[in-house]
């Protein structure tokens, strides 16, 4: 869950800001527009830094504290940037019962980061996710859009090597 504000400096570009303002404009007069705006803003920036939240607050009229409250509530909204390769280990019941907890711990050990964190070189970020629905392949992890199933702890080195 993202509850700490990132210490990595904000590096948003003017193009990204233009896209963000376009998204806000197209939604701001609809009922219940905040969630879709935040979801699309995260797609533009990769995460939701306080700078982006301030722009959304200014344009929609929602107080910043309300927006911050919503962003910190939902697990999918990130206050920290993700790595180039986002590793997501499923800790849903079916995967857990088949040993995904050991795989998660092994990754923490090998990458030297905690769950939710990112390696200092910005390459790998690690998080646990709950059930992506591929339970027939348990245990499962994803690296960006690649899905790896039927894993054992020994498969980890090979998987990490693919992204080096």
């Amino acid at each position: 869950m993202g509850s700490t504000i990132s210490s990595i400096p904000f590096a948003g570009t003017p193009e990204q800001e233009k896209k963000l303002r376009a998204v806000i404009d197209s939604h701001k007069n609809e009922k219940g527009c905040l969630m879709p705006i935040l979801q699309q803003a995260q797609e533009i920036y990769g995460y939701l830094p306080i700078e982006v939240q301030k722009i959304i607050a200014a344009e929609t009229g929602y107080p910043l504290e309300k927006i911050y409250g919503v962003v910190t509530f939902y697990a999918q909204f990130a206050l920290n940037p993700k790595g180039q390769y986002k590793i997501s280990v499923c800790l849903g019941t079916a995967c857990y019962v088949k040993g995904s907890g050991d795989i998660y711990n092994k990754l923490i050990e090998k990458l030297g980061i905690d769950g939710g964190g990112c390696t200092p070189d910005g390459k790998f970020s690690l998080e646990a996710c709950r059930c992506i629905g591929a339970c027939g392949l348990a245990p499962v992890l994803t690296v960006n859009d690649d899905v790896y199933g039927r894993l054992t702890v020994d498969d980890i080195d090979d998987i990490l090597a693919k992204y080096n």
Partner: protein
Amino acid sequence: MKKSLEELNAIRDKIKGQVEVRRESSDSADKKYQVLVCGGTGCTSSGSAKIIEKLNEEIEKNGISDKVDVIKTGCFGLCALGPIMIVYPEGAFYSMVKEEEIPEIVREHLVNGHVDTKYLYKETVTNEGIKSLNETNFYKKQHRVALRNCGVINPENIDEYIGTDGYQALAKVITEMKPEDVIQTILDSGLRGRGGGGFPTGMKWKLARNIVPNADQKYVCCNADEGDPGAFMDRSVLEGDPHVVLEAMAIAGYAIGANQGYIYVRAEYPIAIHRLEIAIGQAREYGILGKGIFGTDFDFDIELRLGAGAFVCGEETALMTSIEGNRGEPRPRPPFPAEKGLYGKPTILNNVETYANVPRIILNGAEWFSAMGTEKSKGTKVFALGGKINNTGLVEVPMGTTLREVVEEIGGGIPHGKKFKAAQTGGPSGGCIPAEHFDIPIDYDNLIAIGSMMGSGGLIVMDEDNCMVDIAKFFLEFTVDESCGKCTPCRVGTKRLLEILDKITRGQGTLEDIDKMEELCYYIKANSLCGLGQTAPNPVLSTLKFFRDEYVAHVVDKRCPAGVCKKLLSFEIDPDKCKGCTACARVCPAGAIEGSVKTPHVINKDKCLKCGACIEKCKFGAISKK
């Protein structure tokens, strides 16, 4: 390109034949080959998209494009054997298909007409020829109602849905039936909410219609959040047959007097979201969603709203407030959503699987549905089989099927010859069913009677190597993480419960802790604001009820009988088996193994970190953990 009812019927008549061929094996005289490839999340992750590409390539190469259709379908259910490819008319079930096998299969089967039996699901290959997959152990006890089109139609083609009598129920409802009659039909069918609550669907619709009869706006919502880990029934319906949900929501809108629907889908289901977007677009294009449907004055439209990773948003009031753009925190009820829901208007919220049953009930009648199942639990239920079971995947069985039938006959039993220990149903809100209740007929009330609950249909099988205390702790970790924090009994109570469980798994618990834990459970259940808190203690209470001896072993003997809880494990070298090769001592990171060459080694328990490196290294199986 709006379609009238006549045009709809014309599409159906044109396509029906070719789609219905895909439900059962038949002989191949004069029939075009139809190659169905599963495009559900599981099989896509195993590379089914590449298989479709390769198929098209090879078919083109062999010049048989006019004799073969390749169709991407939804989930067939037998996920353990994916990627799955079924060729009709023979109904040849190719399992665990690899891209490199495709050229041969195309040549042998599609060009030369000989089924390539070595790549088939073993059970279908018999001496008398190929068995229909409907006769295999996995499928023969199933009765696919909610899943009837999954694995049969291309979910991205509305015409194929229409070919299976799609949207006929909606047409019947808005041109021939009164809203009250629609509600009565659903009431008479006995359909109960499939999301876990089991509330009679007809009753919910009736309340929404009647409590505020002259409301200026009403809403129909679909709960596609499917937060229970291990549950993927709704995902498969959305990926494999999205139109059935759209049709059912429109029927519900007509029944209660609503003209707008929202489907709240969890963001972790990108394929489902994509298929829904396509389906809604196609339905709007045909005029089946929008203004003046089928030339009547009934308007209905549907929009998607995405979740953002909060389990609690599967709770009805949390879901609605999330759509409104707030933190997904539940609120006290009454007033119930049927009176005051989304944006303060009367709203119904039903689960995906509940909706998937509605069109068939309208077409086949309430009696057809209520003839299936048990006295108080009518119809069928989809279960997601996972964990320690051979045939992981989706199954749909009539209510009243026993757990033994599901696990042993349909599920193919426990792998590696291990013993069944318990089946967890209902996810983090549910409980376990131990071996002594293996013959329990599964329905809403039977499971509640033994302290479990049906839940959404996730069924995780555990064997002798799973520790039930560890499982209870696992579920509590989940609930503590997902608790919204609004009410104290849940926010603080579940945390304290987890702390006690953690203490017990670390070997520091006492018998008093067990009693304290039980008391805390009842307190949390009685006082939490919403279903998350009210059911969070269920895994603890259920495992205490059936596996109290395991808790006692952890606390009194400081021992984990299943060999899972690391802090309680004792690693030992069997002196009779140990050859003194020193391999283990060399790999031990803590230097905890002592012994000289050729003499039996000993593990120093004070230094041992219980990492397991020695067990992995030992070639003589001399090291074990107790």
